């Protein structure tokens, strides 16, 4: 008998009742979020020591390069950026930057567009796609994220996509950290040491 058959034969039973599984989700306990002030709630979570992300805000996507330049300059970094091949970024003038589309092992900064911001936790939600590689967001020292304000939602339940799933769906909640040595918190364990969120007020084209 194959291991599969051996295991499943010991787990025979009635098929799960979908209604029973659904019933387990009725009115889930969730952290309190003021739905009328999602942006403020989200920013408050971003500022928590466990998340420790910085933020900025722009009116239109055309303002993005200037906001990125402002951030990098303030951090004492050169205007070098790993940029995803996302058509939404085409309208931006990146002429002031040295751009590359594949991340180097010691990449200084990478930009990404989040699909959602979660007020409950201060999380940013991403999916992989041909125009959205994943690795740069983990390799870069500075992870810079564009988030349209209207895409901020209250709770994690609004994070997943329905239907067919992308290869990776991921939530980033702050900077890479570790408490593995004597429980002492250190930023930038393996991934980004800095997370900078740029809120976009106008809808993205």
């Amino acid at each position, binding site marked *: 008998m194959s291991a599969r058959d051996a295991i499943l034969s010991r787990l025979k039973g009635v098929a799960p009742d979908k209604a029973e599984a659904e019933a387990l989700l009725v009115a889930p*306990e969730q952290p309190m979020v003021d739905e009328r002030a999602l942006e403020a709630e989200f920013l408050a979570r971003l500022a928590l020591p*466990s998340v420790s992300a910085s933020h900025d805000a722009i009116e239109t996507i055309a303002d993005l390069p200037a906001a990125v330049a402002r951030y990098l300059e303030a951090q004492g970094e050169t205007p070098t950026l790993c940029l995803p091949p996302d058509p939404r970024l085409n309208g931006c003038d990146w002429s002031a930057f040295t751009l590359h589309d594949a991340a180097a*092992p010691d990449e200084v900064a990478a930009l990404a567009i989040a699909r959602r911001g979660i007020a409950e936790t201060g999380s940013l939600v991403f999916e992989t796609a041909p125009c959205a590689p994943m690795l740069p967001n983990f390799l870069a020292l500075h992870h810079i994220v564009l988030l349209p304000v209207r895409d901020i939602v209250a709770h994690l339940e609004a*994070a997943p996509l329905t239907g067919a799933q992308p*290869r990776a769906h991921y*939530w980033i909640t702050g900077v890479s950290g570790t408490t593995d040595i004597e429980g002492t918190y250190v930023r930038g364990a393996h991934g980004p040491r800095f997370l900078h969120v740029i809120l976009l007020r106008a809808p993205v084209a």
Partner: protein
Amino acid sequence: MSGAVDTATFKERADMALADRILKVAVERTAGTAETKRAVAVDAFPDFEAARDRAAAIKDHVVAHLGAYLEEFEANAIAAGAKVHWASTADEACRIVIDICKAAGAKSVARSKSMLGEEIGLPHALAEAGIGRVETDLAEHIIQLADERPSHIIWPAMHKTREQVSALFKAKHRSPHEEETIAAMAESARRELRTQMLGADVGISGANFLIADTGAICTVTNEGNAELSLVPPRVHIVTAGIEKIVPSMPHAIHMLRMLARSATGAALTQYTTFYTGPKRAGDRDGPEEMHIVLVDNGRTKMREEGLAEMLRCIRCGACMNHCVVFRQIGGHAYGGTYPGPMGAVLTPVFDGLKQSRDLASACTLNGKCQEVCPVRIPLPTLLKGWREKSWREGLEPTSMRWGLGLWAWVARRPALYRLGTGVAVRAMQMLGKKGWIDRLPLAGGWTRYRDMPKPAPQTFMEQYRKERRQ
């Protein structure tokens, strides 16, 4: 862990741990911080008790319908392009992983911390197969350099002090830290590991959750080492216990809220990733192959033999952080893959009760672990179940069996019992001085460390009868 420790008995290991004051400090720092942070997070959550009920109900629902959910998961994972393997035993699971690595021509694998990997002995199996392994979780990296085993399921290197870590890194890293700070040490590991992760042929992870209705596997880390270990290599292998299933994403979300708060007191881990199959057409990164190994290793047996509640466990570590015994002896003394209360329940399943009967007994049954468990596992009840089995199978020491048997025989005869207790208090009267007994025959374990109050000259029953007669 050194050979000497491996062959020692539980009591010998515990004595070694108790004598190690550095260990005590290290355990106290990490577990104490975790305890405090969890309390704050739980207080801030609107209704954590109801959330625990829900979490337990979700897991019970899954365990009741485990076969069907596994088949649903398998079908969806295959549809997403993953290959699904099944393993009944630890050896079988390791063999599957090694075969995949060999087929991929792997020289090195990057491993993202997985307790299941430790449970099935994967590090050892990879070494035997001659496959280089780089542990990418910082704590697992420390453990690998020290050639030890994890002492905690969330903080595997909690038994190490900063001085010990510093010495290790200086001896083993190519360009080690110069400044004696924890931040500098973490930076040294970052430099050391990054190129190794990016150069690995295979990435191996566990799974915190398997999502039945999408076929996704979920990993959570705070360091981001999972993603850096699993995205660059050509092959991603997942080894997961079959109990890791949840029906859907919203179920996973509830469990994630419980996991992070219970483990570290955070609202969520920094990186929470759901992987559904390998790289898609046009994707810039991601593995070309994704393999998922579903591991039984005693879990179906647990379900059949009264330990189904243990399959709720989401490996948060809260039980050990709050355990008075763990806080004194740390994780290695337990001698198994999993320490603390949950480990004391699980280790007899993997290592046999004969080898590990001490673990269930070395517990005060104070119930704190059950109180903090996010999925309400009745850990003390399960430990008492092992005690009962050990008694039934004659594994308990003869002196204990005879002593308890004699006492119970007398206790079932109230008249004789009154006589016996009357004699006992008079005997103890003679041993005491100034109200205390500092050495008591048959209770040396007590009086070695503390005094025994001298009993009153007469038992309650004797005094009560006398009063009534008057």
